[in-house]
């Protein structure tokens, strides 16, 4: 009598099999899409260590298919042998990198400051300017998102030429701030609306001014939202290419412009292009992995009520 007392009936067994098949399918799909997402990054990273024959053979796995070499990074002046020596390519690269960093960081900072203030005001007080009320003012800010960059590009080109702002970092920063400001206001308005007004009321009763209450009570609570808005702006401004390609030429070039300008000229050096691209995307990969929480918070602001 080995028959178990409790056993799964036939229908339960088939259900388990179905569940197992379902799990397998889910994980297969997940892994397949993860491969689609990650393979290009892997390809770029490995190509930067390949030499010409490796590229031609389409070698995939380092140390198995080919021996990694520092060729790509040497052409950027960033390999172990060349890192100590003088390198014009490296200083060029660092200059572009620095330009990108300055433009992205400062425009995001300005946008977060201006945008948070405006969003706070719009979520707390009622304004009237001519015919415009709060909802109209909000719509005015958010409608900037629809404006395609190409509409502003040529007028700005001419204006900047007259103002001697062409090919300067300040010019780029102003435009980048403008492009990310609506997104910041969108995120921050959502953030401030979730904070109850009783908090400020208590602070006002205790003798703080409006601005005092804003800085001492509200800002610390809204900080996660501000970080989210900042990170999202950083991603958008770091990657921006269109304005940078039109408005800068030699001094204020950003990294995307440098990457783009390499592709056409003098036959393609796969390894150095890969190294350059990888260096351009690396900061954002790090941000994406470390601060993924904030990015998701920023992207989902206002979407789910």
């Amino acid at each position, binding site marked *: 009598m080995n028959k178990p007392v409790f056993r799964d009936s036939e229908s339960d067994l088939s259900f388990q099999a179905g569940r197992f098949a379902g799990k397998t399918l889910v994980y297969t*799909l997940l892994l397949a*899409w993860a491969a*689609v*997402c*990650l393979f*290009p*990054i892997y*390809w*770029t990273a490995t*190509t930067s260590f390949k030499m010409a024959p490796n*590229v031609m053979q*389409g070698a995939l796995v380092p140390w198995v298919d080919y021996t990694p070499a520092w060729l790509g990074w040497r052409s950027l002046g960033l390999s172990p042998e060349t890192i100590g020596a003088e390198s014009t390519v490296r200083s060029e690269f660092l200059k572009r990198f620095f330009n990108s960093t300055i433009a992205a960081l400062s425009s995001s900072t300005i946008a977060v400051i*201006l945008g948070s*203030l*405006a969003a706070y*005001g719009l979520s*707390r*007080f009622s304004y009237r300017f001519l015919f415009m*009320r*709060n909802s109209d003012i909000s719509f005015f*800010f958010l409608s900037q*998102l*629809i404006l*395609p*960059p*190409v*509409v502003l590009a*040529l*007028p*700005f*080109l*001419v*204006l900047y030429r*007259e*103002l*001697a702002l062409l090919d300067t970092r300040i010019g780029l920063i102003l435009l980048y701030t*403008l492009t990310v400001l609506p997104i910041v206001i969108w995120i921050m308005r959502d953030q401030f609306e979730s904070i109850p007004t009783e908090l400020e*009321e208590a602070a*006002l009763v205790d003798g703080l001014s*409006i601005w005092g209450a*804003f800085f001492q009570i509200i800002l610390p609570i809204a900080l996660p939202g501000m970080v989210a808005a900042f990170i999202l702006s950083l991603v958008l401004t770091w*990657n921006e*290419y*269109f304005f940078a*390609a039109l408005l800068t030429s030699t001094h204020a070039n950003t990294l*995307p412009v440098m990457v*783009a300008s390499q*592709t056409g000229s003098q036959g393609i050096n*796969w390894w150095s292009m890969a190294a350059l*691209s990888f260096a*351009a*995307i690396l900061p954002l990969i790090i941000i*994406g992995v470390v601060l*993924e929480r904030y*990015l*998701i918070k920023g*992207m*989902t602001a*206002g*979407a789910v009520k």
Partner: protein
Amino acid sequence: MNQRDLLHVVAADDISAARRRFGHAIVWGAAFLLAVVAAAQTAQRTGFADFGFQTWRPTLYAYILWAICLCWSQVLIRGEHGKRTLFVLPAALFVVSLTVFPLLFGLVIAFSDWNLSSPLGRQFNGLDNVRQMWSDPFYWNALGNMVWYSLAILVEYAVAFGLALLLNAEIRARKFFRVAFLLPLMLSPVAVSWMIGKSMLELRFGPIARFARWLGWDNPSFFGSPEIAKFTIMLLDAWTFIPFMMIMILAGLQAIPKELTEAARVDGAGPWKSFWEVTFPLMLPVSVTAILIRIIFKLKLADIVINITSGGPGGATDTVTSFIFREYRDRSNVGYGTLLAMVYLVIIIIAMTVLMKLAERFARPRT
């Protein structure tokens, strides 16, 4: 409409007449200075007098001074109420001066023949640009391409929805998958267009071309024929932006209370039916928001087109933005390009208004 302040502030302002006068004085003084500087520069421009200005920078500085005085005077004149205005005023001034003014200026440029490299300068040419646009097949072609690119969003949406459902299922290592799925969005389009468009799609030894050959496509060409080139660009753009829709939909899915799907299961609905009858209708508002935002971003598509195909073959992959970009790069004709951009803006505004009205009706919860 509730037009009262959410936050009540008892303002006990005692603003002296002198302070008010001072407030008015700085704002009008700065405005006067701005007017004088602008007039002087215009005079120099038109050749009446020479003040030795190299650029329009002094006018810019005068404008900034005026803006600062305007903000300051709000507090001086209106006290506590002015301090509230100060929250919104800087952002509003910034946006107005950086969009409204260039747009008005752009309207002037749009009706002129202005080649930046020629010494003639701007010449008003009335409706010539409009006529040229009317008979420019490449512009209409680019507009048509935008319609195709926008339609691709529906497929992207379906894929994103599927991925969000997968991520929402009970799985292990969810954080890893979420980060991995999010990464394409972080990469700069220029780097993507090199990494994938140039390197992985390279016909002789790119991994994707090898893969296609292994699948049995003898002579893979990804940018050869117009249809395939357009499709490849769509795929590349989808690869970058699917994570964005996926994250929004995932947030929506996670906001659905578990009880609802459980109730559906108790009532005897299978997974397929419970998706279509419960989950999908509940997801409509989020879906509509995601699609609308995605359309807005899609209409700005340019970077990968400029860098991979520069519009070719024969304008098959052109977007409006990349077309205007080349129009300027090749001929440095600011006037014509601006007119094209303005027409594009008008079309976008009309289309988006219609879409938003439709979406509002469509996403309203069924009663």
